[in-house]
């Protein structure tokens, strides 16, 4: 099947075509870029939610219940489940499907497992592109699930409009909540396994952390009022008088195995989405995301150009050996390789224009 037919089949709702397009995206196979750029015209309808948290926090079980609930409400669901790959063999065991038991046999829940194949932000690009494919296919809700282990995961999960961070009970003393990283990206906190001992304390610690963040820019807006924080227990998704004052990260308690709290979580997602749109934050985030996509693509391409250049220069091994023997150093090599490129760029005029209507013209396609 050629790419044109493939795109047509995807838009017509053929599951096999969606699966194949995602493979092409993952493989970076020839022509995948044109395919993805054709997808853009058909996207923008789906709500994208990111779910992250430490291993064993119950992400997959929760995603399963979310998918089930969305389906009960008549919405179609795409899930992208990301697992790490071995840095040694490149192999991976992608195990999240196993917990997607509630929606078995329902093709309108499309689960796709992905592993960290590429480097240099490659996975976040691939994830963003796969989201585009599912969006164009017509999925109403897209859930990105990833283990929150580091910067890479943060990049991935920020492909989503709303990010939920799962915090299991007893996940460490309060200093953990002060550390930088995964907690800062949360739009919604989920204390899953809320029936376990220690859940109350975890909720309390998170609440204190949110309060501490007041005025310090934590959790997005940084203008949280005491009332909103105190009111979160009987948090009403319809009171959005705070819409101008920034977003206060709510804490939702769930027991994913019993689907307890899943409706509350879906309400929290909806409220966040409403806040995003009303406050103009949605536009800002979308813009930021596209900026990041452009930068990542450029980084990848420049990297590929330089790798090719490096090959022509006899490969990186000889250069590394020269450094080892004290003949040169990495900084000198890098500037030697980059200088000609820099001179070239000075002479070249790019014909990339963004006119007042935001229409980009480039003769590259």
């Amino acid at each position: 099947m050629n790419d044109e037919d493939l795109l047509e089949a995807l838009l017509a709702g053929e599951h096999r075509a969606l699966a194949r397009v995602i493979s092409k995206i993952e493989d970076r196979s020839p022509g995948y870029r044109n395919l993805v750029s054709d997808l853009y015209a058909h996207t923008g309808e789906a709500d994208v939610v990111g779910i992250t948290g430490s291993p064993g926090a119950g992400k997959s079980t929760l995603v399963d219940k979310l998918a089930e609930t969305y389906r009960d409400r008549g919405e179609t669901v795409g899930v992208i489940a990301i697992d790490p790959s071995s840095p040694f063999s490149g192999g991976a065991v992608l195990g999240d499907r196993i917990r997607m038991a509630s929606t078995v046999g329902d093709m309108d829940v499309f689960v796709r497992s992905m592993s960290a194949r590429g480097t240099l932000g490659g996975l976040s690009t691939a994830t963003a592109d796969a989201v585009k494919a599912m969006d164009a296919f017509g999925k109403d809700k897209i859930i990105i699930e990833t283990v929150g282990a580091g910067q890479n995961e943060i990049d991935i999960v920020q492909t989503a409009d709303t990010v939920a961070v799962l915090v299991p009970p007893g996940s460490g003393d309060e200093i953990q909540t002060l550390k930088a990283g995964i907690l800062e990206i949360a739009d919604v906190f989920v204390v899953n396994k809320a029936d376990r001992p220690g859940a109350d304390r975890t909720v309390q610690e998170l609440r204190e952390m949110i309060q501490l963040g007041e005025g310090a820019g934590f959790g997005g807006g940084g203008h949280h009022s005491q009332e909103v924080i105190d009111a979160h227990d009987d948090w009403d998704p319809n009171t959005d008088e705070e819409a101008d004052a920034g977003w206060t990260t709510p804490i939702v308690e769930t027991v994913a195995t019993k689907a307890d709290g899943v409706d509350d979580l879906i309400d929290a997602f909806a409220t966040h989405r409403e806040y995003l749109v009303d406050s103009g934050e949605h536009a800002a985030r979308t813009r930021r995301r596209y900026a990041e996509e452009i930068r990542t693509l450029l980084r990848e391409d420049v990297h590929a150009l330089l790798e090719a250049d490096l090959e022509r220069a006899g490969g990186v091994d000889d250069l590394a050996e020269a450094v080892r023997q004290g003949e040169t150093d990495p900084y000198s090599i890098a500037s030697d390789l980059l200088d000609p490129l820099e001179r070239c760029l000075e002479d070249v005029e790019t014909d990339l224009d963004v006119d007042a209507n935001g229409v980009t013209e480039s003769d590259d396609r």
Partner: protein
Amino acid sequence: MSSEQEGESIRCLVAKVGLDGHDRGAHVIARAFRDAGFEVIYSGLHKAPEEIVQATVQEDVDVLGISILSGAHDTLVPKIMDGLEEYGAAEDTLVLVGGVIPEEDRAELEDEGVAEIFGPGTSVEETIEFVRENAPER
């Protein structure tokens, strides 16, 4: 880590179908495939043929390895093959069966489109080699 990791990777679904509750072998194969650099999706125990079909189609795997010890292969495997056919996935998926398959049932499974049957005692190296050589070109 090299930056050459991107590009194609062999994707495999290791599937347990039906009622048999022993997946030690499936775990061993999943782990061996992972160490061989494949991307492995493990289905978990007690899956219905439709679930296996759904996973094979959505995950767009190159290889579907069905592990079956219960003796129900002659009903379950054809159901999976029919399902793959329905979604246009039969042609370019390499289907393997592992487990206890009596000699006299082999021909029938092969007629159904199973590429190879690995009985007890097959080494994992042999299986990996077979996958490397026969995984469909796309």
